[in-house]
Every structure is written in C-alpha cells, then in structure tokens.
C-alpha cells in the first residue's frame, strides 16, 4: 500500500529528492502528495505531473501502487 513519488530536473534540485515512497491513503491528490513529500514547499505554477508515466491535468487522485512524477516544463530536442 504505497505510492512512489519521483522528481526530475530543477524540481529534483529544488526539493533535494530523487524519489520517495509514501503510504497510500484513499483519496490523496497529486498536490497533497507534493505537500506531504516536500514538507509544505509551494508547488510551482508551471509544474507538470505524470501518473504511471502518463501526463495528467488538474489534481488527480492517486491509486495504490501509482507512480507520481513531478517535473518542470520539458526542453528536449
């Protein structure tokens, strides 16, 4: 009963975390997961969120065993 949380690029450096494992609680949203893992640090306005490697919009509710990733706008190519 856990959720894996990942951070990339500037958000990895900002939060000082690569990834974290948190206990699953029913109804947890992405913003609640962010606040829990980064100890209340404000969520950047332009943040991108992926659940199980798919982009999500808004503030989705996570399910047990989900992988939730937070990262800044992408800049590949």
């Amino acid at each position, binding site marked *: 009963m856990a959720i894996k949380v990942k951070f*990339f690029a500037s958000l990895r450096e900002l939060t000082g975390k690569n990834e974290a494992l948190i206990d699953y609680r029913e109804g947890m949203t992405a913003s609640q997961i962010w606040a829990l893992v980064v100890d209340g640090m404000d969520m950047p306005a332009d943040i991108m969120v*992926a659940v199980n*490697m798919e982009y999500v919009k808004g503030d989705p509710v996570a399910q047990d065993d989900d992988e939730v*990733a937070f990262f800044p*706008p*992408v800049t590949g190519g």
Partner: protein
Amino acid sequence: MHIELRAGDFDPYAEVAGYQAKLAPGKYGASAVFVGSLRDFNEGERVTGMYLEHYPGMTEKHLDEICERAREKWRLLDGLVLHRTGDIKIGEAIVVVAIWSAHRGDALDACRFIIEDLKHQAPFWKKEQLPAGGRWVEKNTSGYAKQV
C-alpha cells in the same frame, strides 16, 4: 520505426545513411531529416556544454506514442528517432529525426510533427553549463521562425 536514447556521441548523418541502407530501394521517394545540435550560446550567455536528463521509461513510451500518432496521420514507410542523454559537448548532435515516405509532403510534415511534439511533450530536460555554473533551460525556442 526505430526509436533510441543514446548516452554517447553519434554522427547523425552516418546514422541516417546506415538506416536508409537497410530500406528497400525504389519504395521511398522522400526522406526528411532534422538534426538538432548543441550551440555555444543561448539567451545572451556563452554555453560550454550541456547535461540532458530524461525520465527512464516515460521518455521512451512518449516517443513511441509520438511516432505512432505520426504513422496514423501520414503515409510513412519508416523512421528513425535518435536522442542523446547525459553529458553533451558543443557541436554534438542532440537529436536526429528522419522520416522516409513515398512523397515529400508526408515525410516533411511527419518530421516536423515529431520534432515539435518531442520538444514540447517528451520528458527531457536540458541543463546548460555556463562559465558561471549550471542553468536549467526553462523553455524551448519556437520551432516556427519569423520571416526576415
């Protein structure tokens, strides 16, 4: 289509030529190629190198989806998408997108579609090395130039 992330330097033109050599001659009448390379300047600063981070698993999955969408939209024979990761030196290729089709319209449009989607949606992040230290690139430049 072949999609690959590579940690080491590659010659994009040799990669395209090598891939094309495996295709059946006479079937393709158009090949469109985009190569992105590392500049030594950006936003008024001298750039001395770059680190390219990605999200293992999601990046490959997203590139697969981009190419699948391109195949649904245009008549394509084959394609090659090769993207660097890790430390990159000035002048080295960052990405190559090559598309083969019977006609130029499909090849050119699909090549443009893939590189634009890749730049705006695929989970890659560039950290430039400047003389004063590292700087994360916050957004890509527009892919559509103003005419002079």
